[in-house]
């Protein structure tokens, strides 16, 4: 009988082994500092008295090696600048993010088929992030959106570029792009407006506050990272 393994290597973007090994050699998981603090403690709030505690600073990190499983083709597609989704041959639902099996209970986990999707969609909902992930903080204020790709029944989350945060709105038609040098995750995908945006209705007071908030965010980015 056939067995699932062993795997056969077809293509590889090698990792920098040194990067990780160096970190392990230089510090590992041993504490790199400590402090002794005093704080109030006791069985209840009425019986608190000062106690001493020792706190250590212990480096700790993970290096994940993981498969994208049965939806690997989506990420392999990104490496080639293509956008793939899946379609249920029974009920016709189209998924992006893809699913290997249809979630419609009537289809009883029917295997889906791969289809290439157009790089066009519509903003289903959005947010303007003023505190983003640390690695993206220099891009603040950063528009994040749920984008429904043309012909699909779900939304692909992604960030937007070339858009004034004040103008982004639900229903905006967008073009979807894949980074020139894709690294093989969803951050390779982003959207730009495909039409002149129609901003949401805001009262003069709300608009003033929004503009001020964005200015504050831009000022913080400038102060922290220099020019944007």
């Amino acid at each position: 009988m056939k067995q699932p393994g062993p795997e056969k290597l077809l293509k590889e973007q090698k990792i920098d082994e040194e990067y990780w090994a160096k970190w392990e050699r230089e510090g590992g998981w041993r504490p790199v500092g400590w402090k002794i603090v005093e704080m109030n403690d006791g069985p209840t709030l009425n019986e608190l008295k000062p106690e001493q505690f020792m706190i250590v600073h212990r480096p700790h990190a993970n290096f994940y090696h993981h498969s994208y499983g049965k939806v690997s083709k989506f990420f392999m597609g990104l490496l080639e600048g293509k956008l793939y989704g899946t379609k249920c041959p029974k009920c016709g639902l189209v998924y992006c993010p893809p699913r290997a099996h249809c979630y419609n209970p009537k289809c009883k986990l029917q295997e889906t088929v791969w289809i290439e999707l157009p790089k066009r969609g519509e903003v289903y909902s959005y947010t303007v992030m003023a505190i983003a992930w640390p690695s993206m903080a220099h891009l603040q204020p950063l528009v994040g959106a749920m984008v429904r790709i043309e012909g699909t029944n779900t939304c692909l989350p992604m960030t937007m570029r070339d858009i004034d945060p004040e103008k982004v709105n639900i229903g905006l038609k967008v073009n979807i792009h894949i980074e020139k040098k894709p690294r093989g995750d969803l951050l390779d995908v982003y959207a730009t407006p495909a039409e002149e945006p129609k901003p949401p209705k805001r009262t003069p007071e709300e608009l003033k506050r929004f503009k001020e908030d964005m200015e504050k965010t831009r000022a913080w980015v400038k102060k922290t990272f220099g020019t944007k």
Partner: protein
Amino acid sequence: MKGKPLASIVSAGLSKFGKIDGLYARELFAEAAKEAYERCPNLDPKRDIKALFIGHMGESYEHQGHTGATAADWAGLLHVPATRTEAACCSSGVALKAAVYAVASGLCDVVMVGGVEKMTHRSTPEVTEFLAMASDFPFEQWHGITFPGLFALMATAHMHKYGTTEKQMAQIAVKNHYNGSLNPKAQMQKEITLEQALSSRVVAWPLKLYDCSLITDGASCLILTKPELAKRYTDAPVHIIGSGQASDTIGMYEREEFTSIRAAKLAAKTAYEMAGLTPSDIDVAEVHDCFTIAEIIAYEDLGFCRPGEGGRMAENGETALKGRIPVNTSGGLKAKGHPVGATGTAQAYEIYLQLTGQAEKRQVADAEIGLTHNVGGSGATATVHIYRRG
């Protein structure tokens, strides 16, 4: 069956909530357990308690898994069967459901159920990463939108569809901070003004700093018995008369609507049906306000108002301490704090105090029926429990 008690709360405990640098999670849980034992002198924990269920989300925080046995060990319950449940921010809501199964099935006379999380010793990016594990991997964790960002997506959808305003969301924060100021165990015990909330730093528009709940250390627990045994332990039990739980897609991106949480609606339907009650019967509720928009959506999902009216309900003060139906009298996740694994049973702790007249400055007059609403992640799990004064 309708309205029949499934299990009875005869005691409850809550640790301090806040930034408690010195203590381990298990020590916080022991603090909650100690209060529950002290409230109930007739309980002999080692003799009576036949099982422990504990909600705990993240072994990443302290590099400590195996929370069931650890908590039993530190709560003086060595050898008792201990089970840990994990459902993100709904971990102890789900533990409570499991405890109800254990008691209502007749297998256990007395059980302890609780939850714990120790979070504040990790940096904010680390906490953010750990919490993000509650959403779909890889399609919801690596696209650049933060967890507040996911709830902001719900908020913009709600604003777009129903005209809900930033001011209405800020009013939730003002209300919950006021309630928190009356709760000696709350993390934030100070009032804020509407202007403070509205002008606080944007996190993920339309959500600002004061729209977001806190990063908190804390633990909570309850002692449940069979209803017919309740009087053995206390003259003032609180009966659980409805217990609902439901799930939804792990990815928010596959949900048709961002303006409601379907799992919460389904859990509420089950709980109301078991209890034989309607939303208008509820005297006091603790709902999952991880973000202010989530409380507005909760009003609608629980049937306190019609879809789209949650914002106005907040604006009119209907859910204030002296309003038609006081919500989050404890201060909620917003002001009391949100140690994620502890939240579900911490909500039940507040309802226990309210229905037994022990809520002091924040007591709701003559409260007889209470409700808790606990949501995991962006809504892939939800539990709703309904309680009646015994």
